[in-house]
């Protein structure tokens, strides 16, 4: 029982990271109806930026904040410079751009920082908490995820800018008619998604270590999470993230072994697409005419 509880808590910790990245995917999906395959590599690149700052002697939390800001601007610039020109292109063309972005970010990072695996510090103390059920980093990662989610919720729910972003994603034409600059809202959305991804990258790096391919598996779990929750539902993505994290850990520890863990994500993705493509919480849109 104790071992089981331990696995569940550890699963919640990584689940929070999947939830963050899944949320980033959903945010971009809502606005563009496309899944950003480069979301993980953008997070990885931001994490390397944090590593450089910390390595240059900056304390952890200032480096953390600066990285979030950096990731935000990285997202905005990518949208303005790379995505905007292909905005009205066929879906496949945009997907190719996403994949190119993934490969380019991966290679550029390898070229700048080398492919050698690096350690990444955790801001939380080394001692376990809650009577050794969970490491401080795992507990801290859950806490950071929850704070990020809360801030996002408050932003989208209660600020005029958050409302404008939701309006622009839902109905761009009507949004323009009330004077919302829809193009900039999309860029802001990319910035926010990249910033969330950056936080996820910094939280996962102490666990998986820092290397240019570190987000490959994480992104796959995030896809599974987003699909389980319903690709157009932010709250669903968060739930999906925690669920996938726990499932992965528990099944990996007691049922299928660590080697097949990633298969859990793939089975979930295929299962959801076959059985319930809208996910558990995919909204059934109520519209009267």
């Amino acid at each position, binding site marked *: 029982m104790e071992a089981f509880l331990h696995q569940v808590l550890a699963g919640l910790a990584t689940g929070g990271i999947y939830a963050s990245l899944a949320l980033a995917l959903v945010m971009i999906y809502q606005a563009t109806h496309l899944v950003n395959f480069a979301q993980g590599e953008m997070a990885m690149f931001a994490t390397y930026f944090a590593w450089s700052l910390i390595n240059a002697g900056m304390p952890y939390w200032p480096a953390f904040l600066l990285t979030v800001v950096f990731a935000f601007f990285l997202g905005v610039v990518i949208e303005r410079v790379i995505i905007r020109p292909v905005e009205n292109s066929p879906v496949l063309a945009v997907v190719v751009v996403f994949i190119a972005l993934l490969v380019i970010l991966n290679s550029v990072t390898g070229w700048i920082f080398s492919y050698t695996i690096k350690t990444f510090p955790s801001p939380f103390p080394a001692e376990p908490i809650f009577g050794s059920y969970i490491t401080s980093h795992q507990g801290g990662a859950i806490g950071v995820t929850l704070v990020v989610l809360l801030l996002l919720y408050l932003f989208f729910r209660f600020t*005029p800018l958050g*409302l404008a972003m939701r*309006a622009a994603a839902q109905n761009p034409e009507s949004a323009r*008619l*009330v004077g919302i600059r829809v193009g900039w809202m999309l860029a802001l959305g990319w910035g926010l998604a990249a910033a969330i991804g950056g936080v996820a990258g910094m939280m996962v790096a102490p666990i998986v270590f820092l290397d240019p391919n570190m987000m490959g598996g994480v992104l796959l779990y995030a896809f599974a999470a987003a699909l389980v929750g319903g690709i157009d539902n932010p709250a669903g993505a968060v739930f999906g993230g925690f669920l996938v994290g726990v499932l992965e850990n528990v099944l990996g520890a007691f049922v299928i072994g660590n080697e097949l863990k990633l298969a859990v994500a793939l089975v979930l993705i295929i299962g959801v697409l076959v059985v319930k493509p809208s996910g558990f919480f995919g909204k059934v849109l109520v519209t009267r005419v």
Partner: protein
Amino acid sequence: MAAFLEVAKLHAAYGPTRVLHGIDFSMDEGTITTLLGANGAGKTTTLRALCGMVKTQGQVSFAGERLDGKATEDIVRKGIAHVPDGRGTFVNLTTEENLRLGAYTRKDRDAVESDLERVFGYFPRLKERREQQAGTLSGGEQQMLAVSRALMLRPRLMLLDEPSFGLAPLIVRELFEILRTVNEKEKVSMLVVEQNAAMALELADHAYLIETGRVVLSGTAREIKRNDAVRRSYLGY
């Protein structure tokens, strides 16, 4: 003095399909003007062209400023509110959120609060539905919401695209009463596109008849109502 809204030789096309072939019309501040015409005549496209939602050629000037070539967002900021074809409801947002979006470009936060109460005064039903998801409102309520959202801009000019579409006659009458009140009390100019020619001519001061992308007849609403061709084709008596 130039007219409040002046449209000259306006052409518009969707891809290779040309819809407007040089529309000319103008309207004075504070008046209600209606564009009449059959399906496909180019009424909706004319309104969309004014707002920069389709590619156009020709001139549009509003209160002495050129609008043609400007982005929709900037045209809205000049004080032009468009109640679009199909109502343009943000279906996943609440009624109140829809209304607040109407005032998105305004900086006078306090006045926005009192304007919210003002439109609830015109449409008490919307106040009852304040927290409700707007997609679940009835057609009539959504039309009221679209008009209210436009009013939240405190517009100088309102463009109304088929405000009577799909509504019960009683609700149409109520809506047009309110439009008249808004025009008279708040001095909001209105350009109304309608298929319901009888209602539109009752409301409007001036009318233009559009056929296949051109203005074929213009005059005061009274004159147009008496025109034999209009009476036969559009009023049906």
